Structures are given as C-alpha cells and as structure tokens.
C-alpha cells in the first residue's frame, strides 16, 4: 500500500501547457501515472503528449473523472486554480508552483479544510509511490526515477525536494525500497506538514519506518516531538536535520524560505534535542539513515 496516491489515482494537470508542466506531464505518463486531462484556460481542444486540454476543471472532469490535481501555474493564479480544483471535487491537490503569497496559501487551505481535501505544497516537487504513481516532478524523467526509487517499506517526508530523491536513492542503492516519498514543500506554511503526514504512514500497514529530512527554521519538528511524546504515533521515525552550522549564523537565510533562525527558535540544536527526548532517532550522518532503518526491516 501507498499513502495519498497509488496506481489507480486519476490525475489532472492544471497549467499543463506551461513549459515545466508539459515536461513533467510526459515524465508522469512515462512512469505510468494516469494523467487523464489537462487544463489551461483559453487552450481547450489542444493536446499535450496525447492528454486532452480543457479550458476549465469542470469541463475536464465531466469527460474524465479524477481525484487528484497537479497544479503548476504562475504564483498570482495559484489560489484560484486550487480553489477551482476543490470546488469541482478534487480531493488531493499537489501545488508545484513556488513564490505563492502566504495569505493565498492560507486561504486555499481554509477551503481545502472545509471540503476535507488534502493539499501538498506549495513549492513542492511532488510525491512518488515507487512503481505505482508519481505526482509532480520529483526525480525527473521516468528512467531516472526508476534508478533512484524502488518499492518497499520506508516512507519519506522531506522539506527539500532534491533531498527526497537523494534519500530514496540512498535507500535504493542499499537495497531498501520506499512506500511513498513526499516533498512537503519549502514554504513556511504548507498544506501537509510532518504532523499531517506521519499519522498516514502510521496507519499504512506497508510502511515500517519513516525518514524525515529537516532544515533549520520553523517549529514543526518541535510540535511533532510533542505528538510522539503524547504517544499518538507508534511508527519508528528517523530524523535527519541538515544545516547544523546555521545555528551559529542567526538571521542569515539558507536553503528554503523557511530556513531562517531568529533567537533560539528553529535552531537545529533545539530540534535535535526535542527529537531525542521524544524517542525519534536522529541520524548523525546522512549514511546512518540506512543503519537505523535496517533495525526495523
């Protein structure tokens, strides 16, 4: 089993005629993802790699029922695109676009909440359930995805898109497969963060252990530790926290927009301490992720 999406998931791509979307639509199709329609207002009637393009989500879904949308439109249009998807019954929206104003993100998340729908991103490369489905552009062309990812029992949730593939690659090259791998998005506010996703892995019988990739900034790791300490989660978790050197450079911006440390808030030191206190394994080196994961397989 995979979480969020599998080989049966029917997908639409909003903004499909854009350069980036055209390219990852092909990669998704090559990987076996069921991309049933695309939407670009004003370009209805065209085809992108054989996928029919519609002017509106409503028209697309009338001909091609789907539950998931990958959204890749300019930042100023993202809010409307997500709400259009949700209004038409999409239950999983993967927002690839970056530089989305935070107020817009919060506003479409408010709508998603009222519809019981799930949003991944914004500013995410997407997610992959190896051998089953891939939503977004994580991992690049299908041939490259097959090299870095393979099916198996490890879940991945990462604040960095590139490191999602890197962790999968580390595990794959050591013969360990993955259930679902999610780039949660680099923004300070994302639709699904560790707190939202770990419980899904926890309930998934196939996933035996979860690997998290964290960076400085934000308090989500601290909150996750509280959740684990309250014994709300039983799945083993491995945390890898990059950017330890950043603790000594307050106020300097590294990595993602979320990666800014002010005072004691969001330092890697505080995250590591909280993880340890909660019994979350902290991988001291990147390679150690494998050694810890093996204990649970």
């Amino acid at each position, binding site marked *: 089993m995979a979480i969020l999406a599998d080989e049966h998931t029917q997908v639409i791509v909003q903004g499909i005629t854009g350069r980036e979307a055209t390219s990852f639509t092909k990669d998704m199709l090559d990987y076996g993802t069921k991309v049933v329609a695309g939407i670009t207002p004003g370009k209805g009637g065209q085809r992108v790699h054989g996928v029919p393009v519609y002017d509106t989500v409503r028209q697309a879904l009338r001909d091609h029922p789907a539950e998931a949308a990958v959204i890749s439109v300019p930042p100023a249009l993202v809010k409307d695109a997500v709400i259009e998807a949700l209004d038409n019954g999409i239950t999983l929206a993967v927002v690839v676009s970056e530089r989305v*104003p935070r107020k817009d993100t919060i506003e479409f998340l408010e709508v998603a909440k009222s519809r019981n729908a799930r949003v991944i991103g914004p500013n995410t490369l997407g997610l992959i359930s190896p051998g089953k489905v891939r939503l977004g552009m994580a991992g690049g062309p299908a041939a490259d995805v097959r090299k870095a990812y393979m099916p198996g029992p490890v879940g991945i949730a990462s604040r960095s898109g*590139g490191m999602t593939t890197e962790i999968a690659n580390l595990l794959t090259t050591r013969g360990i497969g993955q259930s679902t791998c999610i780039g949660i998005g680099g923004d300070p506010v994302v639709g699904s963060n560790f707190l939202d996703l770990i419980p899904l892995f926890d309930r998934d019988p196939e996933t035996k252990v979860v690997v998290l990739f964290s960076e400085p900034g934000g308090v989500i790791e601290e909150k996750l530790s509280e959740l684990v300490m309250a014994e709300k989660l039983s799945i083993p978790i491995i945390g890898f926290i990059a950017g330890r050197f950043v603790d000594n450079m307050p106020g300097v911006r590294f*990595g993602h927009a979320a990666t800014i440390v002010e005072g004691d808030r969001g330092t890697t030191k505080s995250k590591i301490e909280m993880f340890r206190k909660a019994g979350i394994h902290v991988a001291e080196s990147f390679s150690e992720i494998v050694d810890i994961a093996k204990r649970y397989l």
Partner: protein
Amino acid sequence: MRLLEHESKRILEKYRIALPVGRLVGQGEPLTIDGPVMLKAQIPIGGRGKAGGILAATQAEEARQKVSHLLKSNIRGYIPKAVYMEEKKAVKQEFFMGITYDTVAKAPVAIFSAEGGVDIEELAQRKPALVRKEHFTVHSRLPLHRAREIVAEAGVSGKLLLGLSVALATIAEVFLDYDATVVEVNPLALMDDGRLVALDCHLEIDDDAVPRHADIAAMEKDTGRVEGERRMSDFERLAFNIDNLDHRGVAGRVIEFDGNLGLIIGGGGASLTAFDAIRAHGGRPANYCEVGGNPSVLKVKELTRLILSKPGVDKIAVIMNVVSNTRVDMMARGIVKGILESGKNPAQTVAVFRVPGAWEEEGHKILSKYGVPIQDRTVSIDEAARIAVTNTH
C-alpha cells in the same frame, strides 16, 4: 521584508491609528523641540531599546548630539540611516497587540495582552494566562466582535475595551491588506490624556507578495534604506555578480568562510547536508553556496575560478543531490573550464565530484578525459564529503 518603524507608522496612520507626533531626522540637522523627545534608531531588527538604539532628550542640543551618536552606532548589527524623533508624553498603561501566522495551525492568529511594553514571548512563557491568542480566517477576517471578545477575555472592560478592540481589528486589516507576516504594536499606550497611541510598530511583509503592493515594492528597491554590519565581502560580491551573469539556474547564496576547501554544492537541502558533512569529517570549507536549477556553464566556470582565486584554496569539492533538472555534463564542463582557466590541473584540483543524475554519462566522459575520478550515486553525500576531506589533507 521588515519595514522600519517610521515606514510601518505611515501605514498605521492611513488606517487612522493614533501616533505620537514625530519626524525623521538626519545627521547634523538643526533641531527645535518643545518638550521631551524620544530618539529612535531606524533599524530593521527588534531589541533595539536594550541595545542602546532608543534615547531620550529634553534639550535641542542634547537631542542633536544623541542623533549624531545614534547615526554612528552599530546597533544589533545595523548602522541606522535615520533617526525617528517623537514627542514623549506621560503614559498610564501599556498593551500588546499583534497578528501573525501560526504555521502549524496554518491560520492567522491575533495576540493581545493587557501587559504591554515587554518581550511578549518571554511573558507568554512566564505568565501564559496574560497572553490571549485566537486564530481567525483570512476568509472571515477579524470582525470587530471577535476583536472585542479577545480583548474582553484579557480582562479589559469599559471604554478602554471599545478603543482597544477597534485597534486590534484595525491592525488585522493592515495585516491582511498588506500581505504582512507580522504586525505588532508594542506598546499600544493609554496616554494621560485618555488617547490610545501606537508608540512602536513592527511590520513585516511577505517577500512573495511585495510585487502586488506598489508602495512596498518601491521601498524594497531603495537599496539605501538599511545598512547592515555584515556587508558582503569582496568575494561574496563577486560571487553575487556571477550569479547575475545570466538567468539560467542559480549559482548563488555564496558565503565566505576561512577554510581551504572550496565548495560547489547544491541544491538547497543538499548544500546544508554537504556543508555539515565536510565539517563533521574535519574539513574546513572556504565557502558555502547553493547551486541548482541547471546553471549555465559560464556561471559554474566563473564561480569555480572565483573560489580557486582565494589564497590557500587549491582543492574544490563538487557535491550535489541526485539531480533531475540540473545537467551533470553542464556542471562538469563548467568546473573543468574554470579549473583550466585558473591555470590548474583538474585531476589534482577536484577533491571530489559527486553529482549523479541527468546526463551523468556525458558528464563522466568529460571528467575522465581530464583524469578526474567520479563518484556515482552509490556514494552518499556523507561519503563524498569524507573523500573530499581526505583528498585535501
């Protein structure tokens, strides 16, 4: 983007929040004052009062000297470009009010305390009951009755309740209208004459929303607004220029360190990982950087040359996560060209090359032509860092 106090106050003024009478003063400006004043350094960081950035004066000559002193001071890493001078009047009581996003709850949150003028986070830790926090939605905003509920829960009643609720609802409007990520009025003061006045204000605007606010965008373009202590080093400035050579990909966020191992690392998460790993293995990086998004050969070449031009740096480690967008062959070409143009031998200069992914066969061909060993995807970032450090000693 954090606005300066005087910039924030111009916005509050538009929303009819009462402010002390004040104006900006510069170096050597003749001053006339009619009563005690506060002189406040305009710097984009909190805690300036404790750091000596806020001074009081009662005489014009005293004020002039203190302004001059502030404009020469380094306060929490900033050198103020201007001082804001405000009338100083007697205060009866101080309140805290602020709006920000709760990134975990994914909602805006209004914060109010009847004990203002203090560090609110410290107060929230010490006496949580005194700090009221309530979420609201972007869609419904913060209606006056919600603001009133929050202020009333904090124990305020009577005429004061009405004035404070209006102020809280108003700053929530500022927050939403301006795409702010923080609005904080601390303190909002009840003056002896009964008026409610915003003595200080801290406003931060979402960087991604600046383009839709013409007034803020104009401020952002003004490079003379603030002057930080940590100015770019010459090395960092040159690196910044390299990243602006063209719009293809990123070879940026270069920060200079004093080690001997040059780093070309990327993307964002992998750079953090690789830098930590180099240090953990005992290596001393000469720089940090974030390369990604398929930078041009030109940019990679120039960055390589720049790093190798640093005295004492003759090894370079190239480490990236498995790439899909960035092309390995373009990276390899840029690195080799940069090394050759620096008059060095690629085989002796590359401490490690570990960039697996798109176009890797082509990249490996280029590197093997110059005798540079390649680490493939089976070598982890951590192992690549160890190899680089071993080859540098």
